[in-house]
């Protein structure tokens, strides 16, 4: 997002253009028609066509525009000293309808008035890299934030490539928020370090706090959750996903007060220890607005059945363990309970589901749009029996235990499918005979022409198959292929997989995200640089032949924002080829490549507004830069880096 740019570019605009009177000129005809007392309806994705707004005859963009403006009278002649200057509050009201951060950034660049009105009307801020800006700068820029989304560690920390003490601690942010945003309502963190102290601080210092979402975070325990449950009186959302936390037991759930009933979203699916099912049932029955409930494996099918009966309004359900042996009566009850859930659009969990038990969910599947079966090693037949019950399926996640046959069933039964993710059931077992191959993905592409998102783990692939897939589905926006053996060629021709990814980037003009794998030479990157003009995120591992590979990408991919590379033969020349580019990107990660400390120093010297950080491995050569993380920032070098993280300066 353009957060950083809007500051630096705006400063230039301010100095040069002095557009303030021009902005008020534009809107004076409309001021009398905007009522400041009636609430303005909240719209998503409202966008201004900024080009048109700068023209002397303002045309509202055809995509919608604001209803108030549509009712404007004919324009009357405007004189430069028109006294009816457009009041800021009104402008703020109008701009408050904007949701898209990109639109907001564009609007803030128009003139000083708009900049100020936009910043006062902004309620939500998204910070893609917590070190790109400091909390003080954010608070100064946007005084009235109610909702913050913060992302911390580089994505490769998910795969243990980042040391535990790397940083991204949310506490310093919370301290600033407590004084600047005391009315903060929502906090969504991804890959941040969050301690129990921070959670307690959050619970105690923000009386209006409503929504907490922690995805891939670490550093806290269930004690922190207990603080949140105890003190957040108006909590509507508690979403704890996929975190590395200390699970000391399920007592935290009992910390919700007896009269607490505002919960709308509760997700504790990845906590390991048991929660008290009675406590959960009571909580669910009194939270009448509960829409999303994702429980963990400790919840039995009996309990689940009771939960469903008391909360048939659920739109998203994460079932618990699904392997319990049921009597026919229990099965019928469960099936009946699922049948009560007429609004279910998301179904996940279903750990270790047996075929028998899975049939109990059929009645709830008619409106299902997202089905996550990646926690159960379904066989192809079981999947084939389930899918006809889900005619509206748009997103499907499975394990590769379903095999190519299972994927054929997907192609046959899911005409509306837009996203498929196939995870490996046993990633380290090379003997998997039933795993998916290139035939599986081709079968899906043949039956699902709307497919635009794929994440596919496989042990073999061919160039021809990938070409077929993208020919069948040219609208891919996310193409993530992981051939699990590093550097494996096309298994029928023994050629590199260059042509596969070449066909992807040539055919899929809308491609935003690409992950490559298999045996790849620089040709792959040449294709990417030449054709992937909309690509924003690229992940590369064990690929490429020389610096040229990375150079092609840095020179050709104009919209690149995130680049993560591991174990590739890219050295300093490659790193420095992106010199001009890194300020327009969120970040670059390079690990186990051929970059040296000298290369990093050159980069740091040439581009002072980047943080060039090197994580040193124990016992490695002093010249080698084992892991390099480069990102743009207006906050200067990190002050909280652990000893293993060096911020490279030009010295």
């Amino acid at each position, binding site marked *: 997002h353009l957060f950083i740019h809007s500051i630096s570019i705006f400063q230039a605009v301010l100095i040069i253009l002095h557009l303030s009177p021009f902005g008020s000129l534009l809107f004076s005809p409309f001021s009398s028609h905007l009522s400041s007392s009636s609430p303005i309806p909240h719209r998503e994705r409202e966008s201004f066509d900024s080009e048109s707004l700068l023209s002397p005859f303002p045309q509202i963009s055809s995509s919608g525009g604001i209803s108030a403006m549509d009712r404007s009278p004919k324009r009357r002649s405007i004189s430069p000293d028109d006294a009816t200057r457009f009041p800021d509050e009104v402008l703020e009201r109008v701009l408050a309808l904007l949701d898209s951060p990109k639109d907001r950034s564009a609007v803030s660049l128009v003139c000083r008035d708009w900049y100020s009105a936009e910043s006062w009307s902004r309620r939500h801020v998204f910070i893609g890299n917590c070190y790109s800006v400091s909390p003080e700068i954010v608070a100064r820029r946007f005084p009235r934030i109610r909702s913050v989304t913060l992302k911390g560690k580089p994505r*490769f920390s*998910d*795969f*243990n*490539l980042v040391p535990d003490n790397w940083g991204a601690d949310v506490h310093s942010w919370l301290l600033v928020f407590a004084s600047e945003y005391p009315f903060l309502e929502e906090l969504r963190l991804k890959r941040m370090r969050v301690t129990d102290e921070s959670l307690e601080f959050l619970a105690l210092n923000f009386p209006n706090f409503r929504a907490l979402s922690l995805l891939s975070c670490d550093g806290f325990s269930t004690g922190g959750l207990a603080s949140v449950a105890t003190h957040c009186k108006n909590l509507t959302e508690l979403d704890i996903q*996929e975190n*590395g936390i200390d699970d000391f037991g399920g007592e935290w759930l009992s910390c919700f007060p007896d009269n607490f009933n505002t919960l709308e979203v509760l997700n504790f699916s*990845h906590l390991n220890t048991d929660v008290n099912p009675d406590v959960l049932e009571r909580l669910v029955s009194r939270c009448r607005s509960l829409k999303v409930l994702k429980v963990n494996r400790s919840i039995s099918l009996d309990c689940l059945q009771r939960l469903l009966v008391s909360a048939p309004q659920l739109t998203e359900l994460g079932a618990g363990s699904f392997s319990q042996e049921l009597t026919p009566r229990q099965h019928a009850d469960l099936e009946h309970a699922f049948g009560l859930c007429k609004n279910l659009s998301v179904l996940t969990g279903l*750990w*270790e589901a*047996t075929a028998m038990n899975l049939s109990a969910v059929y009645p709830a599947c008619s409106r299902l749009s997202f089905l996550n079966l*990646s*926690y159960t*090693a379904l066989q192809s037949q079981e999947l084939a029996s389930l899918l006809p019950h889900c005619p509206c399926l748009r997103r499907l996640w499975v*394990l590769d235990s379903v095999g190519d046959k299972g994927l054929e069933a997907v192609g046959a039964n899911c005409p509306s499918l837009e996203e498929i993710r196939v*995870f490996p*059931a*046993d990633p*380290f*077992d*090379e*003997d998997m005979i039933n795993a998916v191959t290139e035939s599986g993905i081709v079968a899906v592409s043949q039956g699902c022409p709307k497919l635009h998102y794929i994440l596919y*783990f496989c042990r073999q692939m061919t*160039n021809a198959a990938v070409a077929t897939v993208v020919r069948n589905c040219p609208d891919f926006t996310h193409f993530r292929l*992981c051939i*699990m*053996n*590093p*550097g*494996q*060629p096309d*298994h029928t021709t*023994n*050629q*590199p997989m*260059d*042509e596969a990814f070449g066909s992807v980037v040539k055919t899929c003009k809308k491609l935003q995200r690409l992950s490559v794998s298999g*045996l*790849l*030479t*620089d*040709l792959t990157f040449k294709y990417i640089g030449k054709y992937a003009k909309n690509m924003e995120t690229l992940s590369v*591992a*064990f690929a*490429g*032949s020389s610096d*040229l590979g990375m150079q092609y990408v840095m020179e050709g991919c104009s919209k690149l924002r995130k680049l993560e590379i*591991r*174990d*590739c*033969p890219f050295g300093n020349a490659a790193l420095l080829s992106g010199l001009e580019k890194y300020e327009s990107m969120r970040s670059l990660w390079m*690990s186990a*490549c051929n970059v040296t400390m000298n290369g990093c120093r050159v980069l740091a010297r040439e581009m002072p507004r980047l943080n060039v950080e090197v994580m040193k*491995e*124990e016992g*490695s*050569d002093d*010249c*080698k830069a*084992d892991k390099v993380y480069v990102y743009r920032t207006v906050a200067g070098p990190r002050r909280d880096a652990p000893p293993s993280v060096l911020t490279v300066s030009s010295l």
Partner: protein
Amino acid sequence: MTPPLLGGVEEVASSASLLASSTSVESVCENGSAELKERNYMGLSDSSSSGDSSAISAVTGESKTSLNLKATELRLGLPGSQSPERNSDLCLFASTQLDEKPLFPLHPVNDNHGSSMPKNLLLGNKRGFSDAMDGFSEVKYQNLSSQPAKAKEVVGQKPAQERPLVSNDPRANNRSSANNSSAPATKAQVVGWPPIRSFRKNSLATLSKNTEEVDGKAGASALYVKISMDGAPYLRKVDLRNYSAYKELSLALEKMFSCFTIGQCGSHGTSGREMLTESKLKDLLHGSEYVLTYEDKDGDWMLVGDVPWEMFIETCKRMRIMKGSDAIGLAPRAVEKSRNKD
């Protein structure tokens, strides 16, 4: 569909790969078991790399030895930072190397130093699995195997160029593996690969075993588990349903792994290669020399023999015959147990 290649190089490359594939097929036939499979998993471009190495080994036995010595030399640093002389040895094989990068027309043109072309080629060589391993210090290896078949991946500080040689030469692997620390487990894994998040890995750990259980319920189908032995070049698989008690299993194991223990016997200064009596084998397997362990559903390594047989076959995922010296804390009990059992 082949992209334009550098003229004649293409033919050389393709014939090299043809040679490669036939050679590797032969080597598969010779070795029989999972060795080739294991190589495949660890990600070297299957026949082409092993083929390269066969082609290479056919051409220069001598230089291979010297390269192997260099290969086993402990070095710090990432591959690709090689001294030129290392490359010149391999420039003979540039043509075969090229078959990994046949689509690289720009490269020789852009480099204005033709003499160092091989160096660049090799530096720019696709990094196979063990190249990736080079980049990691030993502490990062989660599971290092002391078996040569796996050890080729555990080549420690080997430079990129050595990879094709290493894959086909167990002796070199043995030496290099001796340089690396070994931890009890059977697979060498790259950190963070495949890129699966840890919460998912944790869920998966129990899933695969459960699938087998489901199969078991369905009709008592085979329950194959792998058995590895420290020092053996390849693993074996047994169907646990073929046995009804620990005794039968241990007898079968002794038979299977006797060929390896004979060698061990000799090297440990016992009476050499004479007939090995069953009791001697038993002593070897169940005495202080070796301990039979298994990995259970939770991923823990347990001593075989503690739980009832039925429970054992339900929970056993794979087995390992460890050296007693590795089984710290287990070994004394093992000795006692074997004495009690016998």
